[in-house]
């Protein structure tokens, strides 16, 4: 599956190819991942490899999950937000902070190794955060 370009912001930012490469890297290194989304903190897609029919809602949901999680972490004085895991019986959605401007969301099946996923995705999120400074 090819990495889709964003459409919602009109023109793609110059960092988009590097972000797409980071997304491919997550796919290559973490097994059982079914989709990766990098969205702006206000819920618009920047780059992803999801089917086009649900990428807008995924971007919005990723921003919602991160926005609420940030607020929860703040409320309890737990420092800066890093990630939130949403686990269902058959799969995960994990959202990571990728700096103040972006969020990284990874969809994975229930068989995914969460430790490995975190290892790969945290590095990717940190890389995206540097790209978007």
């Amino acid at each position, binding site marked *: 599956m090819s990495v889709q370009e964003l459409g919602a912001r009109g023109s793609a930012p110059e960092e988009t190819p590097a972000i797409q490469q980071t997304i491919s890297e997550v796919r290559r290194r973490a097994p059982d991942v079914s989709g990766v989304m990098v969205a702006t903190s206000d*819920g618009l897609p920047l780059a992803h490899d999801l089917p086009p029919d649900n990428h807008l809602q995924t971007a919005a949901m990723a921003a919602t999950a991160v926005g609420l999680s940030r607020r929860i972490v703040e409320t309890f004085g737990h420092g800066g937000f890093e990630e939130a895991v949403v686990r269902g019986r058959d799969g995960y959605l994990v959202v990571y902070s990728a700096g103040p401007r972006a969020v990284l969301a990874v969809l994975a099946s229930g068989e995914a190794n969460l430790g490995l996923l975190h290892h790969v995705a945290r590095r990717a999120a940190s890389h995206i955060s540097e790209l978007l400074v």
Partner: protein
Amino acid sequence: MEVVTVKLLVAGPFAAGKTTLISAISDIPVVATEAEVSDETRATKLNTTVSMDYGKLTVADDDLHAELLMFGTPGQERFSFMWDVLSEGMDGYVLLTDLSRPETFAEARSILDHFRAMSDVPFVVAANRSSSHPEPLSALADALGLDQDGVVVPCEAVDRESAKEVVATMLLEVLSREEVMVE
């Protein structure tokens, strides 16, 4: 004395003033979830709610003690799943509109239609920035497809007293239905 807890939603288009309204009347610091706007709507405002706002207002007199729990929704349609999530168990909702931006009335209509299809709890339409834009409220009511019985309240969301009028109107609508849980 009657003691009631009422869950109110504040819905409405992007930049209508939902977070402002809840902040103006909440007795507690508002739990807000804002992110920087990244698209062309940045020209309208810099920050936007991505998850929810939460505030609380106590209204009390000799006969009634009401705890109003106010939940603000994100405005953009891409967050409509949060409208459904937050409306769980609501007793009523305020549809906040910006009277100075008639171009947003169609969007307000589609939000109202979404909520009316989902729930038949009472609602109040609030027309923000009404003092600087004294257009007749009938144009707004028409755009929203409301007939005579639709309640439209003019307001200034930044003003505590004016914002309180809106939720007081909402509260009366809710109490008149007598569906609120009395503790």
